[in-house]
């Protein structure tokens, strides 16, 4: 299985390559990708240099252009695809049908991958993407069990990539307007969930309070591990119950299921975290690289190294196991 690693900056990109990535994925510094955070991502020139660095070391580069084209602003997305192709991206990762159609028409030779944001969660959905856009690979939503994935792999004529470690969307990806409901910035159109511009942290006595827009997302008592200020991992009141209504602040970690994913027919494992620092990238990539070659018995020891990097300092296997639902 290929190891697909994140990079939010050229420095992180080099770390990922050096730490053993088969592929590094990244995006341009604008709304065309789903990690459009301040100070993050690549200029055209930076991408050119990064791709050259990777190619010399026989590492591939995928460019994520995985938000949805805003009507009237399509040029921004078209240009992103044109430039990624011209700069030699080994694949473009797309979510928007209109942009896929554009890519197929203008760059028929370009390898097209379907982003998790497209929410292709079953065989017929994948067939739609293969048939309409000649998609070569689909990144599956984090809503499927390993059994679901194995069954799906047998039915489709397309490679499968799944998330193995990092941030976990609780909602079907690309189909969530929670953040834009609270902030006006849309993950789908603006490429940012829980935008920093709307996040506030304040200390209330001994508690750390996180707020998104006009809404309190969480209160962390002193000493309790914190998480991102994302709505799906917030603490809420429902009737008389207080707690994590959707999901705890946790990271996805399927280290224990690497062999099962391999035999399910998965072609590539993806690490989430383009918004994370290069220290995270270096650590996670090298641990995952070791895990892929190590025997099952050695993996648990590797897992514990990654917990400290995780949201809430806790990990979950998420939807890969049925009981999560």
């Amino acid at each position, binding site marked *: 299985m290929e190891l697909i690693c994140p990079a939010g900056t050229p420095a992180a990109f080099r770390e990922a390559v050096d730490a053993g990535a088969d592929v590094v994925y990244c995006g341009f510094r604008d709304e065309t990708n789903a990690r459009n955070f301040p100070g993050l991502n690549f200029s055209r020139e930076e991408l050119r240099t990064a791709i050259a660095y990777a190619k010399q070391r026989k590492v591939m580069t995928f460019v994520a252009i995985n938000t949805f*084209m805003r009507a009237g602003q399509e040029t921004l997305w078209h240009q992103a695809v044109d430039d990624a192709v011209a700069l030699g991206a080994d694949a473009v990762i797309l979510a928007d049908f209109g942009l896929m159609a554009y890519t197929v028409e203008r760059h028929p030779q370009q390898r097209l991958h379907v982003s998790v944001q497209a929410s292709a969660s*079953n065989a*017929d959905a994948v067939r739609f993407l293969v048939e309409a856009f000649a998609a070569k690979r689909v990144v599956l939503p984090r809503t499927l069990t390993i059994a679901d994935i194995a069954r799906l792999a047998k039915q489709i004529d397309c490679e499968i990539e799944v998330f193995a470690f990092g941030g976990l969307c609780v909602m079907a990806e690309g189909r969530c*307007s929670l953040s834009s409901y609270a902030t006006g910035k849309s993950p789908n159109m603006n490429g940012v969930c829980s935008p920093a511009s709307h996040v506030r942290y304040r200390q209330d006595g001994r508690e750390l309070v996180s707020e998104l827009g006009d809404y309190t997302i969480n209160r962390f008592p002193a000493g309790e591990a914190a998480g991102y200020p994302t709505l799906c991992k917030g603490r809420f009141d429902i009737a008389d119950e207080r707690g994590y209504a*959707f999901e705890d602040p946790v990271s996805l970690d399927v280290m224990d299921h690497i062999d099962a994913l391999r035999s399910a027919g998965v072609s590539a494992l993806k690490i989430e975290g383009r918004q994370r620092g290069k220290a995270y990238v270096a650590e996670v990539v090298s641990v995952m690289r070791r895990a892929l070659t190590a025997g099952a018995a050695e993996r648990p020891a590797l897992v514990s190294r990654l917990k400290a990097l995780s949201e809430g300092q806790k990990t979950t296997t998420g939807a890969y196991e049925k009981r999560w639902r």
Partner: protein
Amino acid sequence: MTTSTSPSKPALSLGPVYYLWDGPKWRDFYFRIADEAPIAHVTIGEAVCSKRLHFIEPHVGEVIERLESAGKEVSLASLALVTLERESQLVRGLVRDSTYPIEANDLSALHLLAGRPHSVGPLVNVYNGATARLLASRGATSICLPPELPMASVRGIIKDNPGLAFEIFAFGRVPLAISARCAHARSKGLIKDNCQFICGEDTDGLTVETLDRQPFLALNGVQTMSHTCQALMQELPELAAAGVSRIRLSPQDCDMVAVAEIYGDAIAGRRAIDESLARLESVYPGVPFSNGFHHGQTGAAWVKVPASLAIPAA
């Protein structure tokens, strides 16, 4: 804002009931819609959770019959999230067997419906004209645009696709997200596989409040909805002028016949917008209105449109 060629007025449509209502309640709701509501298009069926289907199945036939004999055009909604083999089979069966138009709510339905006239629901990501064109080339004849689209996008998409009918989500709690996990069951100490259809207890959604006790969201099984009710009323003239064909009302557990009448009157210009909004409030009390998405703001926001822009087209 007047145009010399006054566009034809949009028709009213009714989206599928997103909540779990028991069979008789669901049936009676549609009987009344058939008999009394000034609605032209009705989409029925379970879009949210495949486990719920058996509640409505016994009544689908009689509901369709009643709606059709009242002159309504009926479509069937497909599931929004299809992951299990059983769910894939359900969508395949629906597409294979239905003699009624289908509203596609996920990519699998889009695949199965290729080359055959169908509509596209608000849960499919249509953010631009190119996507709408692609869907139209595969057989889509009408598209209900995603509720989070701002008016600028709505206008752009319609302009790009003169032959397609577009529908706007104008009334109802906004479907914001869907998950493989059931937060509704979890909130009552259950899990999805043994949920005991607990979401049926909350026929208008289960309120999620922030830690400051601020009502924020509403759980509906695996779907998360807004606490506020999107109410595009002041915006009707603007939507009509942009060429919107249909105004969608999404069923809430309130008098939807009255809601339809209020919208019908507002579209026809028979009643002032302010008065229409006041009436709407009395029909669906206790739930704040929002229209922020339409205005490119926070979805939960309520934007007061200056009266000069909200005069019903005569």
